[in-house]
């Protein structure tokens, strides 16, 4: 098969980005509902790409992603909420100083949300990265749950179970997709650097990596903190997309971790493009499957809608994907023009 040269690769990539740009600038044609979904796709993609850095590339099985997303969401929301809105929402217990008297812009709030999440990733990673395998997964799961329960009970900071309301809907298509671009560039660049090689080596054989002079703990920590930062950013975008936050397990709790896990497992653990494909798949399919939750009429028969039905069907789909693509859609590989070219060449050959 023909090999695609670097020049053509570059041209195709630029063309692709321009295509995305035109798609996004005309996304309003699809209507408000779909343009919101397109934004959500980018937010999910950031969650998935940051998660795949830890679970795929570094190969440590963390279940704490939702905790970092929640921290980013709450931090940024508390920073951008107007002072009047804060006074109105916090009626059980007033918001503590300095948070009650500041309001900053969306971009700094997002970055601070990411940094706070990264700081928590450091605090959580420091003790729990001494564990390996399933023990690490359980520890991070527990830490994420601790974060959620703290949010639920710290009325003076997070407004507890009442949640935050009236968050400015700053997140639009451009914010979300620009942050996605930043995420992909940073994590992609990391993956294809010497550090990325070290991370992949750790994921395959930590003992051999150590003996090759790689400080496994510090590299895992680095991946965990970078992942935490982008998880926090995605949380900030999510907060300003959905405009209300509450600490239920189904919104920012363990369910969210599992959703993101589904995305990256479908896409292929360790693949950045796979994570994005998984996020797109998840966002659209979970929207489409909503029809099963309302009444459906087929040939005069009415099938009553069952709440939660969409999740059931999604899990069946998930199992099917796992049967046919055992390593996810992309495995550890990235989708590139060469692969697309080869794919179409193959189809062409089969048709002839």
């Amino acid at each position, binding site marked *: 098969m023909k090999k695609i040269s670097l020049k053509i690769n570059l041209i195709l990539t630029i063309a692709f980005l321009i295509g995305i740009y035109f798609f996004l600038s005309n996304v309003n044609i699809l209507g408000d509902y779909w343009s919101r979904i397109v934004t959500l796709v980018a937010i999910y993609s950031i969650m998935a790409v940051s998660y795949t850095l830890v679970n795929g590339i570094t190969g440590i099985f963390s279940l704490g992603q939702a905790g970092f997303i929640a921290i980013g969401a709450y931090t940024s929301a508390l920073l951008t909420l107007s002072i009047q809105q804060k006074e109105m929402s916090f009626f059980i217990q007033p918001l503590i100083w300095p948070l009650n008297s500041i309001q900053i812009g969306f971009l700094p709030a997002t970055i601070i949300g990411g940094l706070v999440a990264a700081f928590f990733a450091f605090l959580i990673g420091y003790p729990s990265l001494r564990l390996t395998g399933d023990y690490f997964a359980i520890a991070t799961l527990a830490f994420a749950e601790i974060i959620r329960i703290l949010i639920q009970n710290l009325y003076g900071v997070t407004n507890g179970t009442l949640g935050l309301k009236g968050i400015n809907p700053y997140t639009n298509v451009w914010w979300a997709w620009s942050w996605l671009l930043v995420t992909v560039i*940073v994590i992609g*660049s*990391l993956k294809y*650097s*010497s*550090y990325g*090689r*070290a991370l*992949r*080596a750790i994921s*395959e*054989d930590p*003992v*051999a*990596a*150590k*003996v*090759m*002079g*790689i*400080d*496994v703990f*510090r*590299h895992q920590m*680095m991946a965990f903190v970078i992942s935490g930062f982008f998880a926090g950013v995605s949380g900030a975008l999510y907060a300003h997309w959905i405009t209300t936050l509450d600490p239920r397990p189904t919104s920012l709790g363990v369910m969210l971790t599992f959703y993101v896990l589904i995305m990256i497992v479908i896409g292929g653990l360790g693949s950045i493009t796979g994570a994005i494909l998984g996020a797109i798949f998840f966002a659209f399919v979970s929207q489409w499957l909503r029809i099963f939750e309302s009444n459906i009429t087929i040939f005069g028969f009415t099938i009553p809608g069952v709440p939660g039905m969409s999740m059931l069907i999604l899990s069946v789909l998930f199992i099917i994907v796992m049967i046919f693509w055992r390593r996810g859609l992309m495995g*550890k590989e990235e989708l590139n023009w060469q692969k697309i070219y080869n794919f179409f060449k193959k189809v062409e050959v089969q048709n002839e």
Partner: protein
Amino acid sequence: MSENVLKIDGMTVRFGGLTAVDSFSMYINKGELIGLIGPNGAGKTTVFNAITGIYKPQSGRIFFKGIDITGQSPQLINQIGIARTFQNIRLFSDMSVIENVMVGQHSYFTNGKALKFLHKHNSEYPKPSWKPWLVSAILKMPSYLKVEKAMKDKAFELLKRMGLQKYADYKASSLPYGQQRKVEIARALATNPSLLILDEPAAGMNPHESEELLETVKEIMKEFSLTILLIEHDMKFVMNLCERIYVLDYGRLISHGSPYEVQNDKKVIEAYLGDEVYA
């Protein structure tokens, strides 16, 4: 005066109640090629694991170039100059051959701790200077790209040295067994060792391959001015190659000397073939 590259003083390694290595002592001079032999389960690999920091010995000291390295982490021990291969090949099987070798060079970016350790023990070693390598790696800054290119060139050079250049872009796991062993040696060499530890380098090779490897080991030893310690079951390999041999049995040193001396040591023969009474 010959300098001790490695010196082990009364090292004991226990796993629970089992004493795997019992007050074992040895020394290796610069430029020597030393063999460590013994029946299965004698504790040879445990000695290697203790030297490279994977196990911490319960008692005894390990010195590398006169610096006490007992209980240090494997990465630090590697960065100050001890590299090893594994008995059961442990390549990064999903990565390409050249990437495997380049992983061995990664510690160039992160060797601050090791340099500090060396500087603390001997001020002749340079003081570490910290550079934000991670940031320049993500931003692909020229300073990083330059190092990356040098790494790739060196990795390719090493592969060429081991006769593996045509496999550079192959997945490591797709190579035949004997070639994988060579990749492991190339990867170990990439870490710039002064002491190379080979754990059964010729295991699973046919006589022709193992003879070839014997030549390669001799050559790289001169080329990279290495000191080598190896475990090997292939007696022909060991007797031809090694200057001195240590024999372990049940975690104890039972014999030590030139190949000729060891071959004729009664204890060694007993360990391998059994006691005369039962024979």
